């Protein structure tokens, strides 16, 4: 293989890495007596294999954005590239083919109410002309993946919300998509069911390498499964990056409003009445029992005064307030040890 070819291959590989790219996307709705700017210049790039979260308040433009991606809605301006092809320049045949590669699930499930679970899952294969026998085999497989083999002949009305969403997921997977778009897929479900659906999505992403775009207004959803997140507000992306980064170093007002979890040091709760130490966890130390290590290594007692911690993608974020011992030597030992572990610490003195 010549060098040129290798380079070419590498180039292709790099190009292939981005599966969805939005450039200057704008959507203006004409309404009686004026217009609504739902999207105001969105630039976004989603990598293959990511679980990409888009979070925003109600009316921020999330649904409009995701509906533009598979062209259920036509943007006023901008470019949508899927695998480098501009969706807006596709003819009808190409558009239909694209939609079979980019599937979607919805908040309201949108199953065919007059068809059985199996027929619902078979639908995408029926319209794609997959032979009946093979389609039926695949239906069984898909129902197994989502854990609903026993419900093949049930009608949607006989299922719970979580089960309906599982059918919707199986149906979306039936055409072997590269991308799965989820518009508030868990918003109609209770917390437990939400968990199980999110786990299923994560599993699908890992096992099949399907890129997933998750639209939500719930931070918990992003925190649990997403690798990257974009915060959308008033039709623009105000912040974007890996979930950890965006979560810890939230810059935008919209982001702070949405998360409302990591308190800035200024508005800290009332100062403790004993000398204390604030430890800030920024995701650096994974799954390490910092406190018990501290107790063992420094041979001190540790009294935790307060803690406000979150787990994001297996990492710890937040802060903890521990009581400092009277003994100045012990204090120094604790601080040195924690700093040595790469944690940010700050003494908080009582009044």
């Amino acid at each position, binding site marked *: 293989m010549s060098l040129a070819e290798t380079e070419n291959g590498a180039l292709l590989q790099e190009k292939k890495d981005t599966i969805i790219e939005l450039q200057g996307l704008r959507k203006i709705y004409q309404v009686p007596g004026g217009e609504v700017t739902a999207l105001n210049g969105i630039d976004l790039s989603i990598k293959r294999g990511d679980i990409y979260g888009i979070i925003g308040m109600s009316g921020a433009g999330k649904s409009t954005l995701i509906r533009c991606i598979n062209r*259920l809605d036509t943007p006023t301006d901008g470019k949508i590239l899927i695998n480098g092809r501009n969706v807006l320049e596709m003819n009808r045949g190409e558009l239909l083919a694209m939609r079979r590669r980019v*599937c979607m699930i*919805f908040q309201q499930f949108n199953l065919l109410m*007059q068809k059985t679970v199996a027929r619902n899952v078979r639908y995408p294969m029926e319209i794609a002309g997959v032979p009946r026998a093979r389609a039926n085999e695949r239906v069984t497989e898909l129902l197994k993946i989502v854990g609903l083999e026993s419900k093949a002949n049930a009608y949607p009305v006989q299922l719970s919300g979580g089960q309906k969403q599982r059918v919707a997921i199986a*149906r979306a997977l039936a055409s072997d998509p590269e991308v799965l778009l989820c518009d508030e897929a868990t918003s109609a479900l209770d917390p437990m069911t939400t968990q199980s659906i999110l786990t299923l999505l994560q599993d699908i992403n890992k096992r099949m390498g399907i890129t997933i775009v998750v639209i939500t207004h719930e931070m918990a959803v992003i925190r649990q499964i997403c690798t990257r997140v974009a915060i959308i507000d008033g039709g623009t992306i105000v912040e974007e990056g890996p979930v950890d980064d965006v979560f810890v170093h939230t810059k935008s007002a919209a982001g702070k409003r949405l998360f409302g979890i990591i308190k800035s040091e200024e508005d800290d709760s009332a100062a403790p009445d004993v000398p204390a130490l604030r430890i800030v966890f920024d995701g650096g130390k994974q799954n390490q029992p910092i406190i018990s290590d501290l107790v063992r290594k420094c041979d001190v007692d540790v009294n935790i005064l307060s803690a406000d911690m979150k787990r994001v993608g297996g990492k710890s974020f937040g802060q903890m307030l521990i009581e400092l011992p009277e003994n100045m030597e012990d204090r120094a030992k604790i601080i040195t040890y924690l700093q040595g572990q790469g944690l940010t610490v700050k003494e908080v003195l009582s009044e």
Partner: protein
Amino acid sequence: MKNLGWWQIIWQAPYIWCKDWWGAVGNAVYAAVNWLWETLFRTTVSVKSWQILWPAFGDTLYMSIVSTIVAYILGLLLGIVLSVTRKNGIRPMRTLNAVLGVIINFMRSIPFLILLAMLFPITKDVVGKKSGTVAVVFPLIMSAFPYVARMVEGSLNEVDGGVLEAAQAMGSTTFQIIRKVLLPEALPSLINGFSICMTTILAYTAMASAAAGGGLGSVAITYGLNQNRYDIMYAASIMLVVLVQIITITGTVLNRKKDHRLR
């Protein structure tokens, strides 16, 4: 058949064919009904009355069944176009939708009897004669199909927009959505519409006498109103009522059976 165009033959032939065996069926049914009457009421059914009522019953069935089927097919196609091309439909086409809407509203606003008269010349061309049972089928269809179109449109518009959107998002063609989503999802409602349409047409057949058509309605009018033969009038009316009941009940039962949202 003298100098009839092929379409006129197509129009008249089924009726002639039906008339052939309907009489034979009538004799068998007469024996059964007579036996029933004897055991129940200790009287016989007069052969004369039977010879009036049975062909009339056949005419009514013929007119309503043929008109309903043809009107329903036309109305179904038109209703699909109306629903699909409306503003938030799966393939919006404003002008087409508006033009069809105006035409349909125009046709629906003409009372049946007036339409019947207005259509006389056209009926003559299409059917080969302007009056009689076979001829009346044409104005019946003409007056019913716009009505069916609106009813079908209503049924289809009731289908959840989210489901249609999901079908679009899966890459369905417009035709696939119509055939595999829109019609099956609306089926229970379409069945209801069909039975309503059939009973309405049945009621209209009673006016067929205005164009020398046959049928129970026309028998009731000729004998009851003009000759004081109340027995025949009541018998004809009861038969009409029973027919309407059978159609309505069948419609309701089928609707329940086909609606999988109910379990």
